[in-house]
């Protein structure tokens, strides 16, 4: 049996809609329009013990809602969730003792306490036996290089330092399952790498199942063998990253910087499509099956005076955006249906 089973999960939120302007505010006092937004619309998937799954999608797609339901915070409208044989929102108190959660935009450490005291407090909250606690704590301190941070109060930590401490805090009770909601958001390059390396190590070395939501596609490329894409409350795709790319498009991008303004108005190629232009920089999309990369580059270099050029895969963001657009079209357009209701 998979460690996580999610079937037909549905969660809707009521959003108070107010007409704009003074009159709208005035009307809102007496009669409120509510719009029902389906954050999750029959989401199903399953995850095996020891997997490292990237869970991605645009803002508002339902990523965080899924994570919050899986971590026992939110109660869904309908659907079935079984994680390690438990229903998170039913057995919340027992269940959350076995999972670790990190929300990148928040901290679970006590703002006014030194880091080490937050750790000790978590030991008491999770009732971790002292020997086990010491062993795990010391290992985490070594792995995340926290030694110099332990006596500092949390509010004085930088974001990167805080995130390392938060990761440690989520693991002190040795959970089998870790939810990471945007753990690298706002971090500098060095901190990002450190966090990524740690997550990879945790998954490979200790067999901790990790569910990672992120907007940083480098996180996904570096870490995740499997990627779940959600858009508009539905799972749009489930597979490896290269499958995902292949399923959407073969397309490559060529970026060209022209050396002068002479051919700005006439720049074009029969086998490539112009995606955008910024000053002298042109970005073209082409199908490598129709025109080979060397041919295309040679032709452009011959016809125009080129300062620089490079070929790349479309950013994963673009792939995701296309999957999202496809999913949207298949679902028949808008799902958020306004319902008028006085309250």
């Amino acid at each position, binding site marked *: 049996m998979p460690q996580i089973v999610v079937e037909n999960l549905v969660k809707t939120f009521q959003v108070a809609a107010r007409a704009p302007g003074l009159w709208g505010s005035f009307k809102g006092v007496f009669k409120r329009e509510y719009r029902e937004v389906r954050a999750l619309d029959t989401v199903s998937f399953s995850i095996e013990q020891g997997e490292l799954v990237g869970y991605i999608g645009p803002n508002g797609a339902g990523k965080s809602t899924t994570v919050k339901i899986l971590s026992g915070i*939110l109660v869904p409208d309908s659907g079935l969730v079984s994680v390690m044989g438990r229903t998170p929102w039913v057995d919340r108190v027992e269940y*959350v003792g076995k999972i670790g959660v990190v*929300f990148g935009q928040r901290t679970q450490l006590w703002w006014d306490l030194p880091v080490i005291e937050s750790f000790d407090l978590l030991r008491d909250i999770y009732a971790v036996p002292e020997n086990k606690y010491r062993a795990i704590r010391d290992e985490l301190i070594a792995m995340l290089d926290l030694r110099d941070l332990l006596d500092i109060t949390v509010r004085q930590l930088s974001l990167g330092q805080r995130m390392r401490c938060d990761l440690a805090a989520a693991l002190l009770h040795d959970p089998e399952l870790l939810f990471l909601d945007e753990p690298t958001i706002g971090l500098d390059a060095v901190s990002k790498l450190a966090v990524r390396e740690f997550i990879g190590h945790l998954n490979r070395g200790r067999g901790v199942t990790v569910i990672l939501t992120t907007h940083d596609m480098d996180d996904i490329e570096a870490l995740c063998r499997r990627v779940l894409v959600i858009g508009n409350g539905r799972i749009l795709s489930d597979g490896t990253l290269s499958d995902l790319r292949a399923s959407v498009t073969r397309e490559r991008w060529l970026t060209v910087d022209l050396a002068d303004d002479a051919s700005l108005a006439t720049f074009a190629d029969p086998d490539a499509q112009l995606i955008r232009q910024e000053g002298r920089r042109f970005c073209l999309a082409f199908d490598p099956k129709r025109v080979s990369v060397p041919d295309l580059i040679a032709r452009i270099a011959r016809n125009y005076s080129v300062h620089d050029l490079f070929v790349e895969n479309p950013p994963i963001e673009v792939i995701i955006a296309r999957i999202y657009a496809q999913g949207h079209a298949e679902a028949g357009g808008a799902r958020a249906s306004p319902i008028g209701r006085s309250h």
Partner: protein
Amino acid sequence: MKAYLAILSSRFRILIQYRAAALAGIGTQLFFGVVRMMIFDAFYRSSSALQPMTREQVITYIWLGQAMLLLTMLAADTDVAAMIRTGNVAYEMTRPIDLYSLWFTRALSGRAAPLLMRAIPIFLFAGLFFGLRGPASVAAGVMFVVSLLGGLLLAASMTALLTISLLWTISGEGISRLAPAPIFFFSGIAIPLPLFPGWLQWFIAVLPIRGLIDTPLRIYLDHLAGADAVAALAHQYIWVLVLIIAGRAILARGLRNLVVQGG
């Protein structure tokens, strides 16, 4: 249990750092104590009618009341308010502990720590200079401690309710401004409750608010003794129980419809 004790002690250690606030509070409470004492002095001098409390009792009631003032200054937990506004409350729910007990514990430490820091200096000061007397008897002293604890639990259960209301109101500004008005009036911190008119007494007697400071104060003074004292203690603890049960039910309801702010 260990978890809650750990949280209690850590909150306590955090709150005990606010020494300037405590000093300012002590100054203000001493000042208002003197003002109130002068008002009631004038009242007793100008009236020859027999009052439900003697002048000496009122003075002790006022000063001990000033020392315990923090039990009447109830507001929603500002830390939880911030958590709800920012969505950090999500983390509170990923702890393997009961959320009501957690918020109750926070409320308890939030009342107890500043209370201790202010009560003891005011008690000593007023005892030395303003005629605050000791407890009427040993029995009264023991029962006072029990009812002081009751008042503390009552304050915590009321605070927890105010905090839980944040799940609906989010800001908590409104309720934290409304709550002090009835509490100021019906707790005895403005006018000792026995001095209220007779037709209002039954209403005051039913409300839980008198359990905050009036019950402990009158037990201390022996103004409530014997069966009356036991009944007052029962009233206090029954209300604590009722408020805890209500708080748990309302919180459970709020959590079913929880929305985490800010995604």
